[in-house]
């Protein structure tokens, strides 16, 4: 198991190199100049700036400079906020913004998505074909509705209803617990629905399997049956969903942070892209990729933990 994790971690390096190379090329190939402003800068100032950021060098030399910095843990300097290091922008001291804020938002959303999805799927799967199957129908309709509505719709709508009309929660900002409620719920809703749907069909299949029949023949009560015998195998497809869910929540957070004015890296991503702040965009792409890679590794480890047949 330990050697497996080590081997997988070794595989992370080439993947990450490819990510850095491709995103570096794409960022630098975008048309326009990072220093282009409405009022043109004097040519000598522009030249000085380009020189300062190595932008006057051939692309491959720029890439080597960038790699060198990256290996030393330096994500470079912002092209927009001059003199500011990206490290400081993304990982500010005192955990007051940037990465730390987005991590909180994402972590809460994943936890809510997981717990919500599992609870809903149990109710849905266990009421199917019973007298209470309206519960299953209601949950299914809810899932369809939530999945087919993008968060660019649900996010402003929730602000309108719960902040502007009802005044239950603040319309935006960051800092208190009530600031968290709306963005976390809106961000996790589609994933609650996806997890519910996947886990529901998986739980229904497991509940019909011979070993559940054996457990029933032993006279076990329904809660014990589900908790001890059915839930673990039924969770296998949900675990494999964790990778895509993390990726989706990361991209979703870009929209959410903008709507709820949360000072996370999602908002920095949008600003970085519009400002052609090469180093900022690159740094965030690398961080996002690293998160996705780490979570995919985590999925495989959780698999081995859940399924006794999987041993690395």
């Amino acid at each position, binding site marked *: 198991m330990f050697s497996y994790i080590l081997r997988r971690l070794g595989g992370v390096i080439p993947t990450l190199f490819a990510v850095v190379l491709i995103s570096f090329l794409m960022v630098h190939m975008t048309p326009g100049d990072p220093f282009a402003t409405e009022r043109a800068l004097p040519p000598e100032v522009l030249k000085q700036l380009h020189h300062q950021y190595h932008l006057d060098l051939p692309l491959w030399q720029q890439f080597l400079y960038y790699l060198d910095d990256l290996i030393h843990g330096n994500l470079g300097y912002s092209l927009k906020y001059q003199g500011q290091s990206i490290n400081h922008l993304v990982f500010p001291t005192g955990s007051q913004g940037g990465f730390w804020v987005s991590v909180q938002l994402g972590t809460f959303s994943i936890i809510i998505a997981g717990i919500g999805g599992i609870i809903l799927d149990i109710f849905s799967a266990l009421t199917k*074909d*019973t007298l209470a199957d309206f519960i299953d129908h209601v949950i299914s309709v809810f899932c369809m509705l939530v999945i087919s509505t993008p968060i660019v719709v649900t996010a402003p709508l929730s602000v309108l209803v719960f902040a502007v009309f009802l005044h239950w929660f603040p319309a935006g900002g960051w800092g208190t617990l009530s600031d968290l409620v709306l963005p976390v719920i809106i961000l996790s809703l589609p994933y609650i629905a996806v997890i519910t749907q996947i886990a529901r069909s998986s739980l229904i299949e497991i509940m019909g*399997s*011979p*070993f*559940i*029949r*054996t*457990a*029933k*023949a*032993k*006279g*076990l*009560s*329904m809660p*014990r049956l589900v908790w*001890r*015998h059915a839930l*673990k*195998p039924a969770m296998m497809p949900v675990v494999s969903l964790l990778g895509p869910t993390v990726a989706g929540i990361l991209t979703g957070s870009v929209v959410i942070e903008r709507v709820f004015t949360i000072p996370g890296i999602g908002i920095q991503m949008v600003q970085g892209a519009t400002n052609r702040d090469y180093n900022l965009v690159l740094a965030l792409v690398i961080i996002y990729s690293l998160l996705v890679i780490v979570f995919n590794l985590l999925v495989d480890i959780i698999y081995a933990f*859940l*399924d*006794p*047949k999987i041993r690395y």
Partner: protein
Amino acid sequence: MSLLEVNNLNVRFKTNDGLVHAINHVSFSLDKAETLGVVGESGSGKSQTVLALMGLSANNALVSGSAKLDGKELIGIPTKELNQIRGNEISMIFQDPMTSLNPYVTIETQLCEPMMVHQHSTKAQARRHAIDMLDAVRIPDIANRIKLYPHELSGGMQQRVMVAMALMCKPRLLIADEPTTALDVTVQAQLLKLLQELQDEFKMATILITHDIAVVAGACDRVMVMYAGTTVESAQIHDLFANHYHPYTSGLMTATPRVDSAQTKLQEITGEPPDLSHLPAGCAFSPRCPRATDICSQQHPVLEDMHDQNLHYVACFHARETDNKETLNS
């Protein structure tokens, strides 16, 4: 009084193609420590009969009739009450141990569960008893194996674990649904022998379901032959092998290979079992029966005592006429 009394049991399945009549008017009884063999081909309702007793019929099943264990009704009672009986007073062993044990749970946990649930014993007590039971089903090297997952054991060993699990609460009735079908032949013989020994040791009644009439011959006191969800013949084992009256029973006998005869070609029963959603008006076996006459396709034969002192019951209009063996073999 007999231990188990099944009266007019019916199981129907609601499907999109209409009602499927899986079990029709099945009645039988079982004494304490008696072994009843239930034989019949696939789809004859052997398994559905016992699943109905255990309350394990599928969601779309309509179960009616009565089944009483020591006078206590089993059919139609709430799951909560049923849960106090199954796994405790009635236990069941299933066909395929590879899929019937939970692959995600250690055998220790699976073994301890019935005792912890029914007798509220502690994990330590249950574990001690589980080790005794694994010893009783002759699993070697128990101490090192109890923490294993099912897939780490062979099929035969898994089925022994199933047996041990079924015996945890000393049931009065053990139902074994084709316990040896998924195992290879040498293991089959060992397991059947083990079941018989355990039955003597624990003084429990057994229902042994099989499609192999040879298995029944070695292991049972009484035999019930089922066809298309009905009982066609029921008798003491020796009596059945000496005189069988129903043409289907005869067919089963001649379709079984024998080592001691020079017969080289097996006699098959021609035709297919009937569609359970469109049963024939009369005797369900009549379309395949070599002796069928007009009455067979018009009326249902009822189970009748053949009056030979051995409680030999047959459901056939032509049971008394001639010896079926001769007509079929000629």
